[in-house]
């Protein structure tokens, strides 16, 4: 329904922490209804980019438009899934309660969530397969379940554009599949989804749009046009040799250092794959 319109328009966005630039002059156009991955090495500014778009970090220069309007006026159509590690999961609250927080934006000040919010939250929990856990204390969830709760919270925001910060980080295979299905459902419903992603291997499979980032924008567009070995080399610089560690920190950090070895070769494969298809 939104086809042809630009969902996100970023122009000349520059962000600096203190005096260190993190993003230089980034331009980005994301058409409505795409499922986009943001990839790039560690420290490339992926998380910073979505935080700056969401106004969580002040930009030194540049502008962000969501459906042609500044973000401040479009908050109601934006959903956000922060990194799972960004909160304290020992906080005394239930799954249902966390999901209902997604409704706080449309509730506004003072008003408390009621029956309607609860129904929406339960529906969202159903969609991520977490309904039986509604009354569970959040610290009793596995990593994958926590991630699903965060996704459910974003779902109840009933947004048009979603920003997700590494939703696949440290989740089990079942959850990964469930999340992918959910993302595809969202796209089918005409939503735009932007995902900070680490695993280069799965980019062509999961996404139809990709942005390669390394402090500045390297390339952005449809996966089969943009996700080329040349662009990947540009994004990951001379550090392609370390690609595996940069792109799969979960594996680099694992107890078994041998796991890094075969992964390194494995991870390079997709960079060649799109080229084959374009030939």
């Amino acid at each position, binding site marked *: 329904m939104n086809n042809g319109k630009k969902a996100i328009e970023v122009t000349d966005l*520059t962000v600096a922490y203190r005096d260190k*630039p993190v993003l*230089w*002059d980034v331009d980005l156009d994301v058409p409505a209804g795409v499922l986009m991955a943001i990839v790039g090495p560690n420290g490339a500014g992926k998380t910073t980019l979505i935080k700056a778009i969401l106004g969580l970090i002040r930009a030194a*220069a540049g502008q962000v438009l969501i459906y042609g309007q500044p973000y401040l006026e479009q908050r109601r159509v934006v959903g956000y899934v922060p990194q799972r590690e960004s909160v304290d999961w020992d906080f005394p609250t239930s799954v249902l309660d966390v999901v209902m927080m997604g409704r706080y934006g449309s509730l506004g000040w003072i008003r408390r969530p009621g029956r309607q919010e609860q129904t929406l939250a339960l529906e969202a929990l159903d969609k991520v397969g977490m309904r039986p856990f509604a009354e569970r204390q959040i610290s009793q969830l596995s990593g994958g379940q926590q991630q699903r709760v965060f996704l459910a919270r974003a779902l109840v925001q009933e947004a048009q554009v979603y920003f997700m910060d590494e939703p696949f980080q440290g989740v089990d295979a079942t959850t990964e599949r469930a999340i992918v299905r959910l993302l595809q459902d969202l796209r089918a419903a005409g939503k735009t989804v932007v995902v900070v992603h680490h695993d280069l291997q799965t980019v062509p499979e999961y996404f139809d749009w990709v942005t390669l980032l390394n402090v*500045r924008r390297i390339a952005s567009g449809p996966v089969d046009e943009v996700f080329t070995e040349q662009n990947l080399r540009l994004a990951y610089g001379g550090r392609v040799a370390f690609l595996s560690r940069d792109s799969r920190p979960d594996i680099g950090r694992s107890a078994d250092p041998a796991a890094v070895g075969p992964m390194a070769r494995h991870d390079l494969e997709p960079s060649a794959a799109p080229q084959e298809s374009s030939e």
Partner: protein
Amino acid sequence: MSLPQIEIQLIAAVVAVACALPGVFLVLRRMALMSDAISHAILLGIVLAFFITRDISSPFLVVAATMTGVVTVGLVELLNRTRLVREDAAIGLVFPALFSIGVILISRFAANVHLDTDAVLLGELAFAPFTRFVVLGYDLGPRALYMMGGILLLNILFILLFYKELKLATFDTGLAAALGFWPGLIHYGLMTLVSVTAVGAFDAVGSILVVALMIGPPATAYMLTDRLPRMIGLSGLVGVASAISGYWLARALDASIAGSMATMAGVLFGLAFLLAPERGLMALARRRARQRWEFAQTMLAIHLFNHEGLPATDKEFRIEHMHEHMRWEPAFTTQVVRQAERRGIVLSRDGYLSLTESGRQSAQQAILN
């Protein structure tokens, strides 16, 4: 200056340096609040030992009180390990309880002796010269001076002997453990040092102000230098300065000496916080202002660099439209463009901007970082 006055200042200065030395490592190891916990908890040790020895200056008392301090550290760690409360809460649970028992014991059973709650908080620096150290009938000076001098010596010795280990355990606990330096042992060694120093200083400056002398001077030195040896030396100097100036402030106001020393430690930190040559607030603001202009010029260069050779170049490079692209104030943009021109980053011709070769290079460099 009368002799007692000189003696008081001397004791104050020795106390301040003795506190500052272990304080440096507390601050660097992010354990500053352990000094708060220890200095409170030792009160219980002092009181209990006092009940046994009935002598406030007995060496047994010092040992017992020191042990209480170390036990407190252990208790905090134990509570931490249950994972039922977080570390900050663990500290906040342990020492108030121990301190409370100490205060209650004092007020219940020892109200009419040397210890009272005022002494607990304030110490009795003004009276310190009255207790003399007498050997074979010779008056060798105030007893507190010898006691704190001994503790100071102990601190210096410990730091000299274990300098390498302390440094390693502070900056890289993992490496220290891998090299077999037992960071746990160093940790408890340091905590014992903090305890013994707090016990010694307790009599002079009271429990809470020990904290000011342990954290204030090292934090001040931390604002001024990056090097560990220099930080240790500076901490000592700042400690002495706090002590002497605190003494005179107290004289001028006819107020608590220990409180004044703590106040001066705070004032000196405040000065460093504002005026430190590199890290002070003023220097920071000045640098920020300069960097803002430089940063803006780099942004301009990168913007031009990114749009070179693209179809919409004309529009992007018009000087009068520059501020729209950069989302800057027009006046600010004009200023930035002028500065960039002066530094040879950009050229303006016929109302258009273009990058010079050196501008292109600096843009590239900035991107690659």
